[in-house]
């Protein structure tokens, strides 16, 4: 009788172990086979809905204008500045650089789809072969290096001018940045993590300034909404008195919260740009533009 009981007990334990292992493997399967496309779409909906709720009177299409979408006083000043756009010189310079041949006789038009005209909305994109995010600025330097030229500095100067010209040829096209596979989803997630993680001595995240307190004053400045951040770059910034790229702005933001800036076009900032661009899908490209 005792032996029978013992066997029954052992049988129940083994059955329990079997059920548990089945559940565990099912969980692991769910983790690897995650529906990342649905998750990204949900993120976009949630992100855009947050701003719609926060600034209910602001049209979605207005978010391409940064803080000028939500602050009337700043907008008036900005519109006056746009009468004589300070970035026009950069566009002209960029066009000259873009059409000038490399030493080998080729030009930038040989590196980009559609000869580099009207392609800004497709950047950043995920290069599955390289397994990394490619921004427009990185693609420009990749093109230079592929043609035996030295890469340009990433934050300002000729590269910002080239980027400004390429953006100007894409005006009015809408951001359509895709997350095509799981490797891309990983890069997207890294960017998302960067966006929401607090850093620096002031312990602020991107989301703290550009979601939670967007539209409110931080010292003398009103913070811009994160939705639409990348659409207008590169920008002529009055504080810089020159053009600068998005990664220059990232570095400035990081310094403001006393976090050491990471390298421009390093993987972390590229992934951040990727996440921000995906969140801004559906907005028009309006770069280059001007900012305070």
């Amino acid at each position, binding site marked *: 009788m005792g032996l029978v009981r013992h066997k029954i007990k052992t049988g129940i334990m083994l059955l329990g172990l079997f059920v548990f292992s089945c559940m565990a493997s099912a969980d692991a399967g769910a983790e690897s086979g995650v529906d990342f496309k649905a998750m990204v779409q949900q993120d976009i909906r949630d992100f855009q809905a947050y701003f719609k709720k926060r600034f209910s009177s602001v049209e979605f299409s207005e978010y391409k204008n940064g803080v000028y979408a939500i602050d009337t006083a700043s907008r008036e000043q900005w519109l006056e500045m746009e009468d004589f756009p300070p970035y026009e010189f950069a566009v002209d310079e960029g066009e000259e650089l873009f059409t000038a041949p490399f030493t080998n006789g080729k030009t930038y038009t040989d590196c980009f789809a559609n000869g580099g005209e009207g392609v800004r909305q497709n950047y950043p994109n995920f290069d599955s072969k390289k397994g990394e995010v490619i921004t427009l600025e990185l693609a420009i330097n990749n093109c230079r290096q592929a043609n035996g030229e030295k890469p340009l500095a990433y934050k300002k100067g000729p590269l910002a001018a080239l980027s400004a010209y390429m953006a100007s040829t894409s005006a009015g096209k809408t951001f359509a940045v895709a997350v095509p596979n799981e490797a891309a989803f990983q890069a997207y997630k890294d960017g998302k*993590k*960067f966006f*929401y*993680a607090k*850093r620096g001595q002031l312990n602020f995240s991107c*989301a703290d300034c550009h979601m939670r307190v967007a539209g409110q004053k931080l010292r003398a400045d009103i913070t811009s909404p994160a939705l639409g951040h990348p659409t207008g770059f590169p920008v002529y910034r009055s504080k810089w008195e020159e053009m600068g790229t998005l990664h220059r702005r990232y570095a400035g933001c990081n310094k403001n919260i006393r*976090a*050491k800036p990471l390298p421009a076009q390093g993987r972390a900032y590229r992934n951040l740009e990727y996440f921000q661009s995906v969140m801004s899908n559906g907005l028009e490209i309006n770069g280059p533009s001007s900012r305070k």
Partner: protein
Amino acid sequence: MAHLRGNKFNMPVMAKVSGEKAMNKCRLLFFMVLSITLFSSGSLYAGAAVEPILEDARTTLNKAAAKGFEWTTTRKLIEGAEIALAAGEKDKSLKLAKAALNEAEKSLTQANYAEAHWRAGIPL
């Protein structure tokens, strides 16, 4: 012979008086040695302690930096401590080294916290 007056144990008081004098001298000597030791070992300790603290601060800061969470202020504190140490300003150096270590530890804690809890920062 008042000094030979007996105490309650009927022992000679003279011996007690001279014993007290000797004890007072001993006390004085003890406190002198103690104060010299305390003051001198303070600065000796400062000199000896800066390097390990600085090394700890550098290591911890590098760990935070590898995770992308270095603060802009910490490396300056380390450099300040190194300069003060080289100039023989041991107290200043110790103070800066301790501040650097404190910041480095906080930035590493911030990095580890962010790794585990970054979702808590999503205001949706």
